[in-house]
C-alpha cells in the first residue's frame, strides 16, 4: 500500500506545476489547462486523505470536483474560442486592451 504522504506529495507537485503554469505561460488555453491541473491535484489529495481517514466524504468531494471541472471547461473553452474569433490572437498580454 502506498503511504498517504507520497500521494499527497504528488498532489502538491501537480499543484505547484499548475500554479507556475498559470503564472508563467501567456496562452489562455495553456493557462486554463494549468488551472484545471490544480483542481485535479486537489481531487487527488481529497481521495488520498479519504483513504487515510476511512471516510467517504472526501471521495464525494472528488466526484463533485470532476463534475464541476467538466462544466467549467465547457464554459471556458467557449469563451476562449469566442475571444479568438474576435481577435485572432491567443496571448493574454496582446489581448489586454484595458490599461492603468
Amino acid at each position: 500500500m502506498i503511504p498517504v504522504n507520497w500521494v499527497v506529495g504528488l498532489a502538491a507537485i501537480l499543484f505547484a506545476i499548475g500554479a507556475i503554469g498559470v503564472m508563467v505561460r501567456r496562452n489562455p488555453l495553456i493557462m486554463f489547462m494549468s488551472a484545471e491541473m490544480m483542481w485535479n491535484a486537489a481531487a487527488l489529495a481529497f481521495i488520498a486523505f479519504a483513504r487515510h481517514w476511512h471516510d467517504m466524504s472526501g471521495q464525494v468531494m472528488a466526484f463533485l470536483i470532476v463534475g464541476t471541472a467538466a462544466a467549467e471547461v465547457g464554459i471556458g473553452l467557449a469563451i476562449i474560442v469566442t475571444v479568438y474569433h474576435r481577435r485572432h490572437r491567443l496571448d493574454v498580454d496582446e489581448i489586454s486592451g484595458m490599461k492603468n
Partner: protein
Amino acid sequence: MSLFHGLLPEYIIVGFILISLLGNMLSRKYHVASWLSLIGMLSAFVASSHLWSFVLKPHMFLGGGAVIDNYSLFVNLLVLLAGLGTILLGWDERRWGTEFPVLVMLAVLGMMILGLAGNVITLFLGIEMLSLPLYILAASTHTASGGEAGLKYLLLGAFSSGILLFGLALLYGAMGSLAFVNFAKTVATPTSPLLWAGVVLSLVGILFKLGIVPFHMWVPDVYEGSPTAVTQFMAFGTKVGAAAILLRFMDFGFYATPGWWGPALGYLAVLTMIVGNLLALPQKDLKRLLAYSGIGHAGFLLIGVATHNLQGARALLFYLLPYGLAVLGAFAVLSLVAGDRDQVSVSDLTGLAKKRPLMAAFFIVVMLSFAGIPLTGGFVGKFYLLQAALFANQPGLAIGLVLGTVLGLGAYLRPIQALLNNQDSDSTAPKPKWTLGGAVVVVVAVVGTIGLGVYPTPIVHMVNQSANFFWLH
C-alpha cells in the same frame, strides 16, 4: 422544520429557473423570461421573510452541510435584492438574448447556497454555482472589450478556485472531516504544517473572490469590461456571497483559535482600505472608479471578520446593505447616462445637474453614502464597524478605517464636482433618458440609503438576530 420548508427560497429559485427555460422555449417574446425571473425572485424574497421567525434557533440539514438560520436568510434577502436590480437594469438590453435572466437566477442561487454553507462541499458548490454563470455574463457579446473581461475573470476565477480547493483538501487531511463545526473541535489540538498550509491556501482562495488587496488585480479590468448591469451584480452580489462565506468559514471553523488568523486579516483589511481608496482617486473611467471603491469597501467588510467579536459580525452584515444599495443606485444612474454604450467616464457626467436635476441629486446621495456622510446608510455602517474595531481593542483597524474613508471621500467628490459643473458642458450631447427599470432601482436605492441613515433600527434588529451563530462558543 423540514428540509423542504427550510430550503423553500432555494427551491423556488430552482423551479423558476426551469420555468424560465421552458418559457424561453415556448415563446418568442423577449420579456417572458425577465418577467418570470422577477416573479421568481420576488416570491423567494417573500419566502425568506416568511421563514424569518421560524429559525431563531439554527437548523442543520444534510449532515451539517446546510445551515438554515437568520444569517442565511439575511444573505438570501440581500442577494435577491441584487438579482432583482440586475434584471431591472438589464431589462431593455436586447443584446443579451433571453438567457440573461436565467443566468442571473443561477448566480443568485449560488450566492444563496454560500449563505447557508455548513461544510466544504456546499462551500465549493456555492462558489462555482456563483462563478460559472458570471463568466458567461461577463463575456456577453458586443461589449467594448470584446470578451476580454470574461476571459480574465475565467482564468483568475479558475486559478483562485484551484488554490481554494487545494487548501480545503489539506484542511480535510489535517482534520478528517468536511464540516466546519468539526474543524473547530479538532483544531484546538497542537497544530501541524498541513493545517497551516490549508488555512492559508483556503483563505487566499476566498479573499481572491472578495477582492482583497494583494489579490485584487482582476477586479478593475473585469468591472470595466463587463456590461453595466452585470458589473452591478458582481459589485453587490458577489461581495455579499464572498463576505458571507468568509464570516461563516472563520467563525464556524476556527472560532477557537482567532489568534492565528485575526491579526493577518486585520493587516490585510487596513492595506485594502488604504490601497483601494487611494487607487480610486486618479481614475477617469467611472466603472473603474467604482471598482476600486469596491475594493476599498471589501477592506471595510474585512474589519468585521478580523475583529472576531459579535459586534464585528453584526457590523459586517449591516454594512452589506448600505453598500449594496449605494452600488444599485450608482450603477443604475451609470447605465442611464451611458445609454447604449459600455464605457462611462467622469467627464460624461458634466452638466448632468442642469440636464437631469433629479438624476444628479440621486447620484449625489448614493455617492455620499459610499463616502460615509451622516444621514446616509453608509455613515451608520461605518460607525458600527468603527465601534466593533474599538470594542475588539484594535485601534489600528479604526485608524485604517478613518484614513480609507477620507481618501475615499476625495475619490467620490470628483464625479459630484463634474456633474455640478456647468461651464464646459457639451450642450449638443443628448439628455440621458429615464427608463422604468432604472427609475425603480434608483428610487429604491435612494429611499433605502436615506432610510437606513435616518432610522436604522429595524435593520439593526434583523442583523442582531442574524449574527446569532455565536451560540457555538
